[in-house]
């Protein structure tokens, strides 16, 4: 088996291209429902970064995403696919709530520490069930964690409907004790930016140190790469799987506890809202690298915040899910992206590839213009009702070729930038 020896930045090229392609595909979907993608993305950007309160909101949204991204990413490094961050987050928040509503008489610093620890423990315990089952019986963690997700969901909705229920309207728990609330860093308008972001970033740095500098990290990664060799090298697989799942779950549980103590102050049954699943795309975009994950989470947090604004403009926020799905798809099948990258490191290649690119672009443009004309309303009306569909077909052709053109252009630009970078770095090496 050959391992790619490409420069390090290559690792992030695939996720970056994937995000670009996903945004392009999503823009076509937006056109299809009759909206303007440019307007949509402008709203999204404004919603995420347009004002100080928007930025604060984005950071608040990013906080738990860093942690769920770390949870999934750490799992990937250890060779387990923790698709259950969702349930672990819920369990973390739920248990933290049970403790936090009773910590009124404890000084804040201790109370917060206890609450967050309980959240971590609960998440760790919930994930460790799946880890233990995998280690003991070989039950695949994807199936077991999904089952645990559903159990957690129903359990939490039961908890807020019955034992913890207060007030009327949306089911919710009582508010947690004031001493357990995370301190606010700053308040912008209606948005309180809590100290959770600091906790998340510290967690990312700690995880980076564990993975890269410690013996434990060495063993976790070894087991993830090649379990047989790891076992041969004195690493207990069953211990490692359970422990990795527990650490992964602890991070997700911490995310739940921070949401509780920093944002909602009470347990709502639907607290997680897909943040666990977001962790998967974040981990993949961040290439399971803790520092990369911080940036990937920021991207996803911005998408989440901005998409709320898009919702007001009539674009369902599910578009974010579609974007995420496409990104995960392309990162998982990364050869699709890698194969479509063109390295133009020699003069002949530049000419050759540019010629091919221009040819493609021209053909696609012609198709677009022709089908634009052919899809004009009323053009096919002599065919009656059938004509309406003919027009629609050309409209779809137009959109698809427009999309292809955009992707071709994007790939060419990105390839050109990479090629330049490679040539440049090679020159530098030669000089030194």
């Amino acid at each position: 088996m050959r391992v790619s020896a490409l420069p390090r930045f290559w690792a992030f090229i695939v996720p970056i291209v994937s995000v670009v392609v996903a945004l392009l595909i999503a823009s076509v979907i937006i056109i299809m429902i009759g909206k303007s993608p440019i307007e949509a993305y402008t709203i999204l950007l404004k919603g995420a970064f347009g004002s100080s309160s928007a930025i604060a909101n984005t950071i608040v949204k990013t906080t738990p995403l860093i942690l769920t991204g770390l949870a999934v990413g750490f799992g990937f490094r250890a060779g387990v696919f923790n698709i259950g961050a969702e349930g672990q987050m819920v369990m973390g928040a739920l248990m933290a709530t049970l403790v936090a509503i009773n910590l009124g008489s404890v000084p804040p610093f201790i109370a917060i520490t206890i609450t967050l620890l309980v959240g971590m423990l609960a998440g760790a315990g919930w994930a460790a069930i799946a880890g233990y089952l995998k280690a003991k019986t070989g039950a695949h963690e994807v199936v077991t964690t999904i089952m645990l997700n559903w159990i957690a969901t129903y359990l939490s909705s039961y908890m807020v409907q019955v034992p913890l229920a207060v007030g009327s309207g949306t089911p919710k728990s009582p508010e947690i004790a004031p001493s357990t609330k995370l301190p606010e860093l700053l308040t912008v308008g209606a948005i309180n930016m809590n100290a959770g972001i600091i906790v998340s970033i510290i967690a990312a740095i700690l995880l980076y140190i564990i993975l890269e500098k410690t013996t434990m990290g060495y063993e976790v990664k070894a087991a993830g790469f090649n379990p047989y060799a790891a076992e041969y090298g004195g690493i207990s697989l069953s211990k490692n799987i359970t422990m990795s799942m527990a650490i992964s779950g602890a991070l997700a549980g911490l995310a739940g506890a921070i949401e509780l103590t920093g944002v909602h102050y009470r347990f709502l049954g639907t607290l997680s809202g897909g943040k666990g699943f977001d962790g998967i795309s974040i981990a993949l975009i961040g290439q399971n690298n803790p520092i990369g994950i911080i940036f990937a989470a920021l991207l996803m947090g911005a998408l989440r915040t901005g998409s709320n604004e898009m919702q007001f403009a009539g674009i369902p926020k599910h578009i974010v899910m579609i974007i995420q799905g496409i990104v995960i798809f392309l990162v998982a099948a990364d050869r699709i992206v890698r194969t479509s990258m063109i390295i133009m490191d020699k003069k002949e290649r530049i000419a050759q590839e540019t010629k091919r690119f221009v040819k493609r672009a021209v053909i696609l443009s012609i198709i677009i213009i022709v089908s634009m004309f052919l899809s004009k309303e009323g053009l096919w009306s002599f065919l009656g009702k059938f004509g309406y569909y003919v027009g629609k077909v050309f409209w779809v052709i137009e959109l698809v070729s427009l999309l292809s053109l955009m992707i071709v252009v994007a790939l060419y630009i990105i390839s050109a930038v990479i090629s330049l970078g490679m040539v440049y770095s090679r020159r530098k090496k030669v000089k030194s």
Partner: protein
Amino acid sequence: MSYEDYAVVMKGIVKRFPSVLANDHVDLFVKKGEIHAIVGENGAGKSTLMNQLYGLLKPDEGEIYIFGKKVDLKGPKDAIANGIGMVHQHFMLVDNLTVAENVVLGSETTKSGFLFDLNEARKKVKELSEKYGLLVDVDAKIEDIPVGMQQRVEILKTLYRGAEILIFDEPTAVLTPQETEELFDVMRRLKEAGKTMIFISHKLNEVMEISDNITVMRLGKVTANLKTSETNEVEIARAMVGREVVLRIEKPPHKPKEVVFETEDLWVKDNRGLDAVKGVSLKVRAGEIVGIAGVAGNGQTELVEAITGLRKIEKGKITLLGQDATGYDPRRLRDMGVAHIPEDRLKHGLIVQYPAYYNMILGQQWWYPYSNRGFLNHQVIYETTKKLFEEYDVRPRDINMFGGNFSGGNQQKLVVAREINAKPKFMVVAQPTRGLDVGAIEFIHKTLLKMREQDVAILLISMELEEIFSLSDRILVMYEGEIMGEVRPEETTVEEVGLMMAGKKLEEVRS
């Protein structure tokens, strides 16, 4: 020029891989009805050449003629249509299907087009097996039949497809000397029936016995075309490695000391839950190499895994340095001084995605000074790796290169260096030279003998009888999970060991 008299002609074949030139203008002429041997070391390009003849690979340059007709083989399908059949080294059989199903797979007997006609398949396979004397049980599942029979199924597969030219890729590697004789009988019968055969091997005695003509390859090129009746092993060997080879290495006398490792009535199960090791008892002394001979798949793998803590011990006892070590995990065993050169370096021995310096501490990563209070000491790790790279001549000298990017021989050197650097008291060495070239084999053999002189206890498991004979102080022969007997290399013969490998107890052999 006409190639009418030849079953196979390959002219000017060139095949390039990203890192090597696997075939460099190779010419091959195989006459109708002969057994033609192709010999060469691992990596000489034999398999690549044959994969092109079988349509699995496409030549970059060159032409192929079958029975005088130029062909363009786009895939195995074309090769089969041209009457070529291949008996692969690693059997290409589907474990959970029956013998009959395996034989007809891909060109099934059918009823009304799409229904599979199992009865017809069974009948045809039976007829075929009787015609050529290839005994098989048509209804048995592949996973339940012995290796020898699996090979016969492979041969039947080619005959069922009407093969006139059969390629045998290292067919004897998994057989006992006696099973090898049986295979040769089958091959002679096939020759009588007019079939042409290509026999790939690196075992010279076998080539001398069965072939009519020999093509020798080295580093992707043909170095000799010989007529078997007019040549000898020395000449072939010279063409194979490009220099005179010392067929055996010097083993200085050395007196073994106290018993380091001992098993008593050891029972181990395989992956399917069947008994693979049945009551093995053995002792290894300090400064002694104990060799375990046997055909692959007779419980050696399971024995090694049990000894090194990778597999559960069902029954029995392991004593290490006078201490009961039954059921210890690999970590604990390593702490006690056990090292292990695994038979499959890519599965067990290396983490291909880790750089060399991380691979150099695998299995020792928790030891001081590599690990200090839970943190890795990268500086020490780099320096140790650099030192060992020099000492063991691992190439290239790039400690940042990923484990997977080294060549097979250098990967093995890396593993050997690491295990010896652990300063073991007991070493389990499984198939240490599989797939290596002569130079690397010599190096590893010398290293093992040096360890013996330093009073390390060594258990050597190998399928290569020659290796066992030249290194071991004592030889144990394993068959179906049991020890058939213990002999000393200087007091026994290959035939005697061969009979034990085929399941005869030492007493039976000698009586």
